[in-house]
């Protein structure tokens, strides 16, 4: 009885969370006339890949994905490289200062990015970075810095203080300690922070739409927005669905890959417990 209920609950949760994505995927594979047909056609018949191929033919969709991957990867890297030393310092700061700094970061993180759009745009234009990846990479890294610092700080604080001190006595400088001790010892948390930042960067739309106007420079979110029908009055549901699925798939794969890597227990044997 209990097991049955449990199974039922799992099915319900799965339906709730997977159904929209599944609907999207099914729509992407349906011929046009079945998409809007009433009564609803649930399963595509026949399965068609015309939307996917159309997407690739009419738009540089591969380029979008590549741009997104590059921008997100660099932004994530930059974000972690900046966040890790900050987190390392904060994790050993007196509690009073640490809490203030973390709260301050939280405040900054809660700031709606749309308020920053205009000043950022002015800055980007001044630097001549319109359509340049840097226009996204740097703001992305900065916007997600609070999140990364929060995740890394709590992980670093859990590391035994003596390991850092051993590193100091072995002659490692502060940044070397972060790179050679903190980062590998808190690897699961670094991976978690990196993954989160990467996902947020990948999904970011507002800045991408504003700073990128040339088709070849667009990231996938901005690219999808530019998918249009043959006339003003036609919404290309099939292609849009295909685009969303294609944009989400890499993220899903990434999460699955990292899920296996995010293993705890890496600090086993560091100090006698």
């Amino acid at each position, binding site marked *: 009885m209990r097991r049955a209920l449990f199974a039922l609950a799992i099915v319900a949760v799965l339906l709730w969370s997977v159904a929209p994505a599944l609907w999207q995927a099914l729509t992407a594979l349906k011929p046009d006339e079945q998409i809007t047909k009433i009564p609803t056609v649930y399963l595509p018949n026949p399965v068609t890949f015309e939307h996917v191929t159309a997407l690739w033919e009419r738009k540089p969709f591969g380029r979008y994905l590549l741009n997104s991957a590059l921008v997100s990867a660099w932004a994530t890297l930059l974000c972690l490289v900046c966040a890790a030393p900050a987190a390392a310092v904060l994790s050993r700061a007196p509690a009073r200062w640490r809490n203030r700094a973390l709260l301050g970061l939280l405040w900054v993180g809660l700031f709606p990015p749309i308020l920053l759009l205009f000043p950022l745009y002015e800055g980007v234009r001044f630097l001549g970075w319109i359509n340049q990846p840097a226009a996204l990479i740097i703001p992305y890294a900065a916007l997600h810095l609070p999140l990364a610092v929060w995740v890394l700080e709590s992980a670093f604080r859990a590391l035994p203080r*003596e390991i850092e001190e051993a590193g100091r006595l072995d*002659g490692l400088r502060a940044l070397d300690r972060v790179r050679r001790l903190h980062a590998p010892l808190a690897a699961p948390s670094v991976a978690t922070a990196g993954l989160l930042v990467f996902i947020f960067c990948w999904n970011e739309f507002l800045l991408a739409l504003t700073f990128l106007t040339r088709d070849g420079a667009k990231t996938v979110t901005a690219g999808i927005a530019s998918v249009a029908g043959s006339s003003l009055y036609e919404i290309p549901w099939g292609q849009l669905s295909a685009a969303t699925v294609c944009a989400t798939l890499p993220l899903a794969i990434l999460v699955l890959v990292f899920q296996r890597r995010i293993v705890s227990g*890496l600090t086993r044997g560091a100090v006698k417990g």
Partner: protein
Amino acid sequence: MSDLRGRELVKEFPGGVRALDGVSFEAPGRKILTLLGPSGCGKTTLLRVIAGLESPTSGSLDLDGLDLLGVPAGRRDVGFVFQNYALYPHLTVAGNLGLALEVRGMARGERERKIRETASILGLEALLARKPGQLSGGQQQRVALGRALVRQPRLYLLDEPLSNLDAVLRESMRFELKTLLRRVDATAIYVTHDQAEAMSLSDHLAVMRGGRILQYGTPSDVYRRPEQVFVATFVGSPGMTLWRVTRDGDGCRSGAARLPLAPPSTPAEDFLAGIRPEDVEVFASAAPGSFQATVEGAELMGARTLFTLRSGDALTRVLAAPDACAGRVWVRWPPGRVHWFDPATERRIDGAIGTEAR
């Protein structure tokens, strides 16, 4: 080799805790100095100040006349062994040993030679490719030692390095450690709260309490002539019997019990009289200068037994042969073996009559 000298070191932590309250000491080269004291006495803080992990609030510290306080921890050339080892869990044993050498820019071949050399001293050759998590406690302890050893530092600092080992291993490691430190001719500062460890390991002993060094000397000096009540009770196991006595004619009295023992010739009326359990003499019948006691308890300590004897409301602890005491006995505190202290200052009272020459 290296003489370490500290002058009036004070360390005050935020919040007003004074962990070091004016500590001066001298650690002669090629000797093992032990800082002994209960937890919270400042011994670890002192060690960390010497290592450069903490900076003192005031005072000076120099090694061979060179001021150490301006030198960052990484360049003080000290090998530190942490109480919990603090090995790098993501590196192999070889990596743990080699990191400091690598940071110094030592060439790869030279580095590997050094690592192997150190590993062979400690019997770790077979474990070089393992990670700390795959080692036993004793092996981890050796790696921690090796990490200090491999750098051939001017100064070894050991923070209760044996306290995480089980009793049997601790005793064998104690001897091994002493032999090893002798062999590498190390100047070492060793922190422990275990007086037995301190007695067996050190050339010099500094007993600490409340951020101060109470007494400094060789282990046998400290044992034989404790300068303060605290030192007398902290050093030596089983602990010293200590009676609070008042002068009573040519002897003294502790409550109902009379101690036929002349106190030192000072104007004072109150004293603390102490005697180590192994110094007490027990007789089956009345002997000169003895008093009567009943056996209250007996604890077998191995070759000898620790008896607790009651005279009135005062207790004497005696270390004697297992069959030495039964029922009623006569106890004598040999005058030359009695330590007298001033109960107000807790300091040793010396040059007193009534203490015969040894």
